[in-house]
């Protein structure tokens, strides 16, 4: 077992190093750099000599390898450099933007799961058939809803029309309510579709028929047998949806004026703020590696078949 853990951690470190190196090379290959863009910007009206001096002071023209080693050493010691555009340390930017994104994404995902389960259970259990088909068409409607439009609509109705939730200067929970809803609705759609499909599939499986033949009620079969079997593939898809969740978060952050990684990335890309982008790539890789590592290490815990053989190594 310790060997397995060491191997996994080693792999994770390799992934992180590759992400750092590849992103470093790609970011260096961009036609401009943050210093150029910041100081060439006519806003400052600097002359060519002054810009050359500034570039020299940032060692922007140092050889590639020197820059690479310098940056790598800094990252290893927890120094992510400065954002040229914002004029603050990158670590301050991450501290200001990571927590809101994590809250938004986590709560948005949880609400999406709740919505998806409610929709699919309702569609399986409702006795009236026209109501059932109405519920079944809800995911299509949700998936077709642009996040941007939905966010504005919710603000217009709940904040401006009925004045229930302030969008400007709200309390910490008020601030999350509408954005979480905005994010959850489109994410819940594919989840609900897969869940509904799985419930239908499992319902037609022989074991469900056997259970019913033994006199089990519709509800009993759904909750005891079908739900368990239908939920697992849904959660797998849920993991894949996480990427979409972050993309949706960019728009939601913009509409609600929230801080977050999305907006930070967008601004950093716009101004080619390499220090910020480099840190964001490494952090995303770290998050990915962490989630996968956790899943891998937990796999034997959840699936009894894997416990005896330590098969997860394969």
């Amino acid at each position: 077992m310790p060997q397995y853990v060491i191997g996994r951690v080693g792999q994770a470190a390799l992934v992180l190093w590759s992400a750092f190196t590849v992103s470093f090379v790609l970011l260096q290959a961009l036609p401009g750099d943050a210093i150029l863009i910041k100081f060439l910007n006519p806003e400052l009206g600097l002359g060519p000599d002054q810009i050359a001096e500034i570039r020299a002071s940032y060692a922007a023209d140092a050889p590639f390898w020197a820059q690479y080693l310098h940056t790598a050493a800094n990252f290893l010691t927890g120094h992510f450099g400065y954002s040229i555009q914002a004029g603050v340390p990158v670590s301050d930017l991450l501290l200001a933007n990571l927590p809101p994104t994590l809250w938004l994404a986590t709560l948005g995902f949880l609400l999406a799961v709740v919505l998806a389960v409610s929709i699919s259970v309702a569609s399986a259990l409702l006795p009236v058939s026209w109501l059932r088909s109405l519920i079944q068409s809800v995911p299509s409607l949700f998936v077709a809803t642009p996040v941007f439009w939905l966010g504005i609509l919710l603000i217009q109705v709940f904040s401006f029309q009925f004045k229930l939730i302030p969008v400007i200067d709200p309390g910490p929970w008020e601030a999350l309510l509408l954005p979480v809803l905005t994010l959850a609705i489109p994410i819940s759609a594919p989840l609900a579709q897969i869940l509904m499909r799985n419930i239908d599939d499992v319902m037609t499986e022989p074991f469900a028929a056997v259970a019913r033949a033994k006199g089990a009620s519709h509800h009993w079969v759904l909750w005891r047998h079908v739900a368990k079997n239908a939920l697992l593939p849904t959660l797998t898809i849920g993991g894949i949806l996480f990427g979409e969740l972050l993309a949706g978060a960019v728009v939601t952050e913009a509409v609600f004026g929230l801080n977050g990684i999305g907006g930070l990335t967008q601004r950093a890309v716009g101004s080619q703020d390499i220090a910020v982008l480099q840190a964001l790539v490494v952090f995303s890789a770290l998050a990915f590696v962490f989630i996968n590592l956790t899943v891998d290490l937990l796999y034997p815990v959840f699936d009894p078949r894997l416990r005896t053989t330590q098969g997860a190594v394969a």
Partner: protein
Amino acid sequence: MLTGAAGWGASARAADTEGTPVKGGTLIYLEQQPHTNLYPPAGGFYPNGGILNQITDKLTYQNPKTLEIEPWIAESWTVNADATEYTFKIRTGVTFSDGTPLDAAAVAKNYDTFGRGNKDLKLPVSEVINNYDRSEVIDPQTVKFSFKKSSPGFLQGTSVIGSGLVSPATLALPYEALGDATKIIGSGPFVVASETLGRELTLKARPDYNWGPAKLEHQGRAYLDAIKYIITSEDSVRIGALLAEQADIIRQIQAYDEKQVEDEGYLIHAPSTRGVNNSVVFRPDNPLVADLRVRRALLHATDTDEIVSTLFSAHYPKATSIIARTALGYVDLSPKLSYDLEKAKALLDEAGWKAGQNGLRQKDGQPLELTAYESLPQPQNKETLQLVAQQWGKVGVKLNVLTADSGSTTLNNLDPAKAPVSPAMVGRADPDVIKSQYYPTNRNVLLQKGGTSDKVQSFVDEKLNTLLEQLASEPDREKRLAIAGDVQNYVVDQAYAIPIFEEPQAFAAAPYVKGVSFEAVGRPSFYDTWLARRR
């Protein structure tokens, strides 16, 4: 109140002067973009200027109505005949919010930094200070600045946002640390109380503030207790929040939203930025626009009236020169800027560009096809360029309007081959602004050789540069304004620029927000502001 409405838009009415100021309250200000680096010379960026103007004071005050320079932190000053030496007498008893005195030594340190930059701290030189040599502290309240050459624009340069005075402690910080607003220590009526990066900024009034511009009626502390800046990038959310009484004033409102806001009894403030107008400029290094006849043809093919009436409102006056009517040294060049399709076609014919089969003009098999990149900060810039493209299409010239992120735009805009046409504007209430815009080692919008772009092959206009140098160094005011007139005529005669409209900075405010004033290039000042109805 001195900072009256006359200097800027029509719709601010007389609302500012009603009633007796009420003390207290927090002003909720919705900003479109987060501020960037707050090193004072970077104050030109609208969000930066909106903050720096509350927390810093300037050596002098430019009256936004008359554009005269009046005393502020400097009680008085003398300038020698050839404008190479300026001596300022500093007011006593002024302190920065960290307790350090704002005396001659502090002023000298500020200007040494702004005028020469600081290589070790990576602080760049200020755009508004030309030919700076050194400072000399004569006594604790007297400071003298010397210049290598005449620098007649310097006095006005001491009044701009980019010359906001900051504590020596702030100037000791490296450039990369100055994006943190809490580190910017000024002597202004407000002080940064707290900041959430990229989201929110709170300013508190300084209770002991007692050194506002001498000629202002209002003295002592600001009426407001606090100002809260909240970043709200989405236009419709800003406007909705204002109308739903969740905010008091918002920055950046598009011309097409103005009516909705005014119909509800809210006010549009559209102070002019009073510098070089929002224009379309050419890069004659590109052979397609090297021919004066082509540029003149495109100038006459541009229908500014249509652009202003279709896309903008009364707050965006049509340009009648390369600088605004309210700018110093302005001359009216409307006759030279006429819309005349026949003249445009004749000029293109004369230049050898004949209409091809698809209506596109060609010469030696090459089509007359140009490209411009949208400037993200300018109001409805893409729509403006697209309308210009439509108008040029009528004479057989194609203009491609491209949008890119600000990084790529900045880089592509430095290459005359990629961007033969470019949008341009800059605000500053002194004729030096013309030099800033066109001179090769400043903003260099025409892309002459010798500037920041290494892509320029050969284009240089010595005559223009000589005029610009004279403009920045002629100590005699009358002569200097005459040179300003010559430059405007020359740029239009050479059809280097097509002026479109005089750019304001547009705000919308609730009717109970009184006494909002604007400095000479449209940055808001909340020193005089009060809330008639407490929130």
